[in-house]
């Protein structure tokens, strides 16, 4: 019963996604994106736009991303603690 409901939900959302894909052109507000695309080369001298964004415009983002990796490593080490780990 639960599996049937989940399958129904999946099929419905898949149909919705395919319908949206085939029918309309939905684009978010492009103000910031236009600015970045026009100016990233002379601001940061990086030819790859993604690198320009995650290393220059949004550098806090990548700093906190690496922080999240560090925190998750600490969590994994703590949860898989074993008694002969100390030696």
């Amino acid at each position: 019963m639960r599996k049937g409901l989940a399958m129904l939900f999946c099929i419905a959302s898949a149909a919705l996604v395919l319908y949206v894909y085939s029918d309309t052109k939905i684009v978010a507000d492009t103000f910031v994106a236009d600015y970045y695309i026009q100016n990233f080369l002379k601001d940061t001298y990086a030819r790859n736009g993604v690198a320009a964004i995650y290393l220059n415009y949004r550098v806090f983002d990548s700093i906190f991303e690496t922080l999240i990796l560090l925190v998750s490593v600490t969590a994994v080490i703590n949860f898989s603690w074993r008694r002969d780990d100390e030696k």
Partner: protein
Amino acid sequence: MRNSSEIIARMTGLLFPFIIMFGFYIILNGHITPGGGFQGGAVLASVFISRYLVYPDEGIRIKSLQSAEKALFFCIVVIPVLFLFANNYKSNELWNQIYLISMNMLIGLKVCSGLTIIFFRFVFYEGGK
């Protein structure tokens, strides 16, 4: 060698330097072609995973990787503070390139050590009977 086929072990060893060179290529060209720190670091971490196919025993010094990861995170915090928020070198092309390459390199090494630690902790310490 516990249950691992000799052919797989021997031929995987042949591939190691190629994978390492490819990972460094993805990291270093992150600002020109698609790629970058995270992707190259994941490729470098998969070298350690395929090392597990060759020698399935604890030959990895996890402790030194942990301290290396913390030091690399410190560098990742410090370098943008020194460079990007100083406002002096913002229009110099060479300094910008150096900044991009060094940040990609640091992020790549940090991601590599982090994913390697997670993998080896899971395999050796977690999930036993």
